[in-house]
């Protein structure tokens, strides 16, 4: 058995400390050690983007990241999107629902985490900027049109209100 290493992370605001094998991926760590199953695994080789999470505010493939690499980091997963006190959906989640931006929903957490990063950095993205941001996420169901519309809807709803 390989030596275990200590990993301390803060996921969606909660602190976790675990002893893990160095080879454990961040995706398996989140899903099976912390029981945060919303981060899905579609290819395990970094192409499909289903497992996208934010590590210190930047999007990362949880399947290509080792849990030990995330030691000391703050991580946001899809479970961190809903308002913890009211349970209300995050505007991005609500926009995906209203825009029919999903079908099977398996890739959706990855798309939403990518969108979260996009809209934090680029609150008013052009269509080309949205496509550029989402170009690393595969969806086999929707054909992307409703995803594009959902992201536009989210951007519109999240835009800081401009003075009249």
């Amino acid at each position, binding site marked *: 058995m390989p030596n275990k290493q200590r990993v301390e992370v803060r996921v969606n605001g909660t602190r976790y400390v675990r002893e893990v094998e160095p080879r454990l991926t961040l995706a398996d760590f989140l899903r099976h050690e912390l029981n945060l199953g919303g981060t899905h695994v579609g290819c395990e*080789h970094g192409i499909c983007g289903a497992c996208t999470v934010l590590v210190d505010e930047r999007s990362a493939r949880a399947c290509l990241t080792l849990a030990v690499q995330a030691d000391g980091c703050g991580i946001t997963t899809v*479970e961190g999107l809903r308002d913890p006190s009211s349970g209300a959906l995050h505007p991005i989640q609500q926009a995906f629902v209203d825009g029919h931006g999903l079908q*099977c*929903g398996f890739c959706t957490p990855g798309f939403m985490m990518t969108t979260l990063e996009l809209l934090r950095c680029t609150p008013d993205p052009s269509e080309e900027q949205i496509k550029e941001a989402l170009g690393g996420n595969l969806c*086999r169901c*929707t054909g992307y049109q409703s995803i594009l519309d959902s992201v536009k809807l989210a951007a519109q709803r999240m835009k800081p209100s401009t003075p009249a």
Partner: protein
Amino acid sequence: MAIEIPTLPEQMPNDASRYVGKAVNRVEDPALVSGTVEFIDNFSLPGMLHCAILRSPHPHARILSVKVDAALAAEGVAAVLTGEDVGRWCNPCFTAPEGWGNYCLAVGKVRFVGEPVVAVAASSRYLAEDALELVDIEYELLPPVADAGQAMASGAPLVFEERGTNVMLDRTYTWGELERVFAEADRVVSRRFRWNRVGANPTETFGCVCRWDLADNSLVCHGAYQTPRFMAIGRAASLNLPVNRVRIVTHPQGGGFGGKGGPRGTDIAALLSRKSGGRPVKYIEDRMEYLLAGGGQSWDRHYDAALAVKADGTVTGFRVRLVDDQGAGAEGYGTISAAKPLAAFTGNYRIEAAGYELTLVATNRAPTYPYRGYGPPPHNLVLESLMDCTAREMGIDPAELRRRNYIRPEQFPYTVPSGNEYDSGDYHAVLDRVLQMADYDALRAFQAEARAAGRLVGIGVVNTVEPGVFDWNAYATVGVPGVGVPEGVKVAVDLFGGVTVAVGFSLQGQGQFTVASQVAADYFGIDIAQVRVATTPSDVAVPHFGQGGSRLGVAVTGAILGACEKLRAMFCTVAAHVMQAPEGGVELRNGCLRRIDAPEHSMSLAEIAGLMLSRSDLLPPGIEPCPEATYVWTAPNRNAPDDQGRCRSYLTAANATHVAVIEIDRDTGRSAILDYFIVDDCGTRLNPANVEGQLQGGVAQGVGAALYEEYVYDADCQPLVSTFVDYLMPTIHEVPMTKKDHIVTPSPVSPLGAKGCGEGAIHTTPATILCAINDALAPLGKELLETPASPHRVWKLLHEDGAAA
């Protein structure tokens, strides 16, 4: 009691639909966007083991010895499964045609790269994979059958020695006076086509958790199952269990598209559970396993086809010879995809005679499985490309040639030569609408300008008929027996007037839970939030099939309406009794049971259900205290096929016309889709947003098949595709944001007039793109008749003469 299923939304017992026909938000979505849905890898049982599978590196080899002692002794390992166990305990899987099945794990020899050979159950997946490295297998290599041509050559090695041949099925169908129409034709347009393997690739691969109860000799399988009861019957057959001792619990699935696989993984996990004393065993297929050998390879086809055409452009005959490489056996029912084109063999046209020579062969490629569309996408590509070739040869506009040959609106119901009956449609109206939306004349003018400037711009105008609501009779020609596909539900009204619809399937993405909720809510005049749709395990669910063949939206609607009609009759009887109205004097309207002669006297659903459950003393004689009803729907008026495979198979015939504008880059061979237009007619749109999603998703898969996706095998039958770096799935950059419109011709024969609509776009898009590409290539005198029209393949064609074209 004869049950009348409403064939239009207006026939429901309400004054106006609140939900049916509207793009209501999906009831599935709040949980899906929250990440709380129990996909199979989010499900665990106490004491659960994890399975890893060692797979064959050879396409064809005899297994001389298998040594697993070291693996069995490895850390965390509870059980190791080998071919010896499987040969002793199992049967090869059932196939159609019969007798071309493998065991779940290779017994004696391996027939394709990726075939399971040894499986391990250990306390973690990591440890199970470690243990696989300690397994020692000695192979004797056999010459592989690398492709269909080799399979049919005399003296070829045999994939299944006991069969004595690699040809699974060789049949010729003749419908109408085929020889005469070809003899009398003014022109025969023929071409050879090659459609290379593509496949489903849902974002979630297959997974399951199986537990074999050794005391009870029963099996429970949780998993990503598209067709639960069918899966239960198959497991009973392969694992030698009574069907009523197999329970399939289907979980929400991250897509399916037919190509989810499942039987092999389930049987392996089940047997590992049996070997480890009944501990639950989880198997999660990884993407490399899926790409190499999962249920995701389809349609490996060689076509020779011809149209018989009269001088005025009337197409009178369509002849197709298909050699279909099924891979190493028929375990995945890939054979059915060669039979399905019978349901709409001659497309939108009044072609009077047709012929189909069908040869299905086994090779050492991975076995083929269903994929969305299930056969027609390549078939339509052949037919529609020949229509374009004809138009080019005759100097007729391709849209005009099609229009001249359309089945006319007054001809429905229309029986096609291959036997199926189209229920309704107006192909001229669909074509007119899409040409208008695309401003077709302006597009042709733009193309002329672009060509004058040396650009390679092409336009594809392609129409197809989508057979919707499959029936088993459609597949009788490849050995699947049966007429009818039961889809059942139970509808229950609770004490508080809530309605629960119990179904036999789970979420897969098409939004059927939403459609079910819309229909039940409208029928009973309640808020959609008062309806709950719940999945039932296969052994206790009413007969069902699940997703497949553009069927479930229509079928589950029919089943719910049937159950609701039963409840209405029962509730009216109870209400009449307690309200002291004459027999037949109460009606259901807008969710109330009211006296027809005095509508101010009424009872709510909750009052009726509560009374039935708690006041048996008030019930009329013969009424059970059970405000629940089951109904099992199947398409009406289906029949058994004749000796040429002809029958009324698919219930509905939706149709669509797509227009694509494509420009080929001479330097790279890349085809850019400049614009894309769709007009379709799938009858009543139960949830228009769902329909649009099905269309656009089908376009994306069609783009992949036409331009990028391909399972490549080398000359030694080694797969060259094992990751998404090799198998190119379309991203947001490759898929056109289509412009869509529709017309509505309600089906006269289906519940609420809805037609199957899950596959029409993938039926149409590959042909549309290839026709556009060939239109772009036409000035060069070149044709591409092979898919995918990848940049590499197009570039080679452009540069085959040595210089840049």
